Each structure stands twice: as C-alpha cells, then as structure tokens.
C-alpha cells in the first residue's frame, strides 16, 4: 500500500535572472570550461561583471546565457574570442532589428 502512495517529489529550483548573482566559478562550471576562458571573454568585452572594482567578480544571470552562446560558437564553429565578441554584438543587433520589424509589420517574419 505504501508504495502506491509514493509520489515523486516536485523539485523547485532558482530562476537565474538579472537579479541572480553568479560567481566566476559558477559560470565556468555551468559552461564546463575554465575560469581563464571566462576571464578572456570579459577582457574581450563579451561579458561584463556587475562591477570591475570588486576583488571577486560577480555576474548577473544574463551572463550565463551569453557565456553558453560563446561556448557553442567556439566549439561548433571554431570562432576565436574576438570573433565571438563581434558575433554576439551583431546577434544582439539583429535581435533588436527583428523585434522592430515585427512591431512595424506583425505579418513580416523577417
């Protein structure tokens, strides 16, 4: 009888958003990469810590998304870090333009 009543527990997680603070270690682990690689991304301006002044960098949750994209671009397309920074800037711009086109003409799926 007992066994029937066992229900799998529902897990609750933390939403990683712009209010979440991630350490350098959190980021590098979530990307299965080294801290040095994340630091290079910061040096290229592809990622920004909340403040450069702190001895220990903290990042917002948005950085996780960016770092993962950077990792995919390097792994799948063999782009170097400067190239990654450029691609990510351009992707942001394309995203904004797409949204704008869509606002102007909702039927245009550019």
């Amino acid at each position, binding site marked *: 009888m007992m066994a029937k009543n066992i229900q799998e527990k529902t897990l609750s*997680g*933390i939403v990683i958003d712009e209010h979440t603070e991630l350490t350098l270690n959190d980021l590098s682990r979530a990307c*299965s990469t080294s801290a040095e690689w994340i630091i290079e991304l910061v040096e290229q301006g592809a990622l920004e810590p909340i403040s450069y002044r702190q001895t220990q960098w903290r990042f917002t*949750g948005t950085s996780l998304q960016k770092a993962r994209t950077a990792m995919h671009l390097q792994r799948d397309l063999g782009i170097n870090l400067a190239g990654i920074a450029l691609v990510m800037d351009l992707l942001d711009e394309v995203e904004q333009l797409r949204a704008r086109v869509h606002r102007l003409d909702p039927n245009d799926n550019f």
Partner: protein
Amino acid sequence: MDFKDYYDIMGVKRDASQDEIKRAYRKLARKYHPDVSKASDAEVRFKEVGEAYEVLKDPEKRAAYDQLGANYKSGQDFNPPPDWDAGFEFSGGGFTDGDASAYSDFFESLFGGAGFGRAHAGHRQRAYQAHGEDHHAKVLIDLEDAYKGASRSISLQSPELDHSGHVVTRQRTLNVKIPKGVKQGQRIRLAGQGSAGMGGGQAGDLYLEIEFNPHQIYRVEGHDVYLDLPVTPWEAALGATVKVPTPDGKIDLKIPASTASGRKMRLKGRGIPGNPAGDLYVVPQITLPIADSEADKELYRKMQQQMAYNPRSKLGV
C-alpha cells in the same frame, strides 16, 4: 528506419573531395547554428549536418557508408545488413566532440557499435576529488505557464559509467516546478541534479533552459506580450468597449474613438509577472466587413456619399 543521404544533406556530390566537404560543413554549420539562426528547424538541420559531417569527414567511415549507400535513396526504409562493416577497420575515436546521443537512429545503427570508441564520449579524466559536471536541458512551456506557474515532468537521458566502467544511458524523470514569471531563454538551476561528484566532491547542478511553445495569438518579447486585436471600423471610429483575451483571462478594454490601425495600447503590468512585471500591448487591426447583401452595399454607398474621406490626400491625388 529511413536511409539518410549524407551527401544530399551536405549539398555535395558523391565524389566531393574532403576539402569540399569541409567547406560545405563550415558553411552549413554557420547557417544553421541554433544560436545564430532563427529558423524554426535550425537545431534539427544543424544536428543533421553535424551527423553527416561526422561520417563524411572520416575517410574510413565515408568508404563504408559509400559501399552501403550506393543502392539506397534518402528516406527509403533501411536496415543495415549484417556484417555490413566487415572488411573495414575503424581506428576508434568514432565520436569526436559531437553529442553522440543526439545523432539519429540511422547513425546509431551504423556507427554506434562497440568498435567505435563510445566509452570516451563526453567523459574527461577527473581528478580524485571533483565537483560533478553541470548538466543542461531545455524545457518547453506555454506562455500561460509563465503567468500562473506550473509543474513539468521532464525526462532526461544522460550517459553514465556503470560499475564495470561501461557507458550506459540512464533515463530519469524529474518533476520540476516552473515558477511564475519565467521568461524565454532564462534558466532554472536545480542544485545537485547534475552529475555525481567524484571522491566526495559535490554533485553538479542541472540547468533547465525555458523555451516557450509558439503561441497562436500572443507574441512575446522579453517580458512584454503582444496581441493583435481585430476591430471593426465603427469600433475604431466611434470607440467601444470590447472583450479582449489575455494570458491571465478575458478583460474588457476600452477602445478610444478615432483609433488608428496598428496604434499600440499598453496595458501596464499585464505582461509576464515579475518585478517589474512586463506589459501587454494590444495592437488594434481594423478589419473590413465584406458587403455581401444588397443592404450592406447600400450602407457603403451611403458612407461614400456622406463622408468626404480621401485616404490618398497625402499622395497628392
């Protein structure tokens, strides 16, 4: 199982040189990269191209595939003949950096056998004590789930080493609470649900990336939501109160007189909940009633006579 024509997928001829194949791959990989392309089938295409390249870039696998594939067409029902690979020697390292579990059954049936060096797929040598690897997965939810919160049951497959050191695919199901207010692309971190640690190290975390199912009537931008609302010419001209659906339920919306088509109306705080909450934008689209009956046509004629309206005045005609 369908036969897959890897040459067709890569868009190269069967006698293409290794260099041509490499160039074709690089081009297609850029085109369909899921982080770059917004095409709905980008991820599927990207994986397909990766799988085709995995075979064609390796002269040994390519030769075996060529011998097998000469008589098959793409999509044709296919079962590998027994011992199809007899006489070929594969030098291991079958799976490179690719995510082997993402490849098709077709690939698995050909190259997934023991001789292909599966054991090293995605597993690095670890130090004695190590933090377990973090895992990543996607979870599809509806926009309404982001408004109200929901629970999702998620099936995950992950390669793991069993006691004898072989890689086995472990399947597990997790029930996960999707908190209200999540947005497209955000991640939920489930502490300790990644790979187990080694030698007393902590387990890794599981990150679930939120992706919205495309919605029939709403469009989402960040935490704002857009709705195209069809209105009649008289509602737009005279003003009206109309019923409007929102992901939170129906509301009554006042349309001011002289509303132009496409003029956004912002409903503050009715987008995806949060701090701050997003907004809901209602975009009126004036639709034209078709004059079917004689009476309807008469109405239009009356308007024509009574209203001095020239929509082309700015064009100078």
